[in-house]
C-alpha cells in the first residue's frame, strides 16, 4: 500500500541553523501539506501546496518557512533560522481519497 515517507525521522539542530525536512508524498496525489505537532498538543496546519505553489498557509508559516517541490517526487519544508519553539513533530501529508500523513520528523532545536 502506498504511503507518505519522511526523512529524517529525528533532526537535532542548534538555534539559528537552517533545517530542511523532506517528504515523498504518495504518487498521483496532487495536494501536499505540512503540519506540526508540539509535544502534547494538537496537530496544526502549516501550509498546503498545489500545482507548484502555495495554496494556503497558516499564521505559523511565517517568512522563516518555505516549501519546495524540487522534483517530481520530493516535497520539502525549510526553516531558515530555527528557534527553540520550532521544536515539534512535523508531518507531511498528501491528498487522494482522504488525507494521508507521513510518520513525521521530530525536530529538536537546542
Amino acid at each position, binding site marked *: 500500500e502506498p504511503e*507518505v515517507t519522511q526523512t529524517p525521522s529525528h533532526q537535532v539542530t542548534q538555534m539559528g541553523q537552517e533545517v530542511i525536512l523532506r517528504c515523498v508524498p504518495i504518487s498521483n496525489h496532487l*495536494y501536499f*501539506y505540512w*503540519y506540526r505537532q508540539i509535544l502534547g*498538543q*494538537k*496537530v*496544526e*496546519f502549516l501550509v*498546503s501546496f*498545489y500545482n507548484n505553489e502555495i*495554496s*494556503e498557509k*497558516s499564521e505559523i508559516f511565517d517568512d522563516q518557512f518555505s516549501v519546495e517541490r524540487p522534483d517530481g517526487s520530493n516535497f520539502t519544508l525549510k526553516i531558515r533560522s530555527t528557534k527553540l519553539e520550532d521544536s515539534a*513533530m512535523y*508531518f507531511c501529508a498528501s*491528498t487522494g481519497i*482522504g*488525507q*494521508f*500523513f*507521513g*510518520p*513525521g520528523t521530530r525536530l529538536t532545536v537546542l
Partner: protein
Amino acid sequence: GESVGLHLPTLSVQEGDNSIINCAYSNSASDYFIWYKQESGKGPQFIIDIRSNMDKRQGQRVTVLLNKTVKHLSLQIAATQPGDSAVYFCAENGERTGANNLFFGTGTRLTVIP
C-alpha cells in the same frame, strides 16, 4: 476562526466492548471530516472520513456519525481491541477550500483494558 473540540479527553473501555468517541465542531461551513488514530511516536493514521451530504458512514469495525444540526461528529469502534488504544482526533476542513487543509481537535485518548 475554526474550532474543533472533543467532549472527553480520555476514554477507557473493556476489550470487546464498543467505543464511542465524540467531537464537536463550530464551523458550519465545514463539509469534510476525518477521524485519525495516532499511536505514540507515529503520524496520524486515516481511519474514516465523511462529507456533509452524509450522516453516517461505515468502515471495517468503525462507523462515523455526523449531526450537522448540532455540529457533532462521533466515531464508533465495534468490539474494541487492545490495538485500538491510541489518541483519536477528529479533523475538519473549516472554510471550504480546494486545498482541504485540516483543523484538528485536541484528541481523545482511548485505553482498552484487556
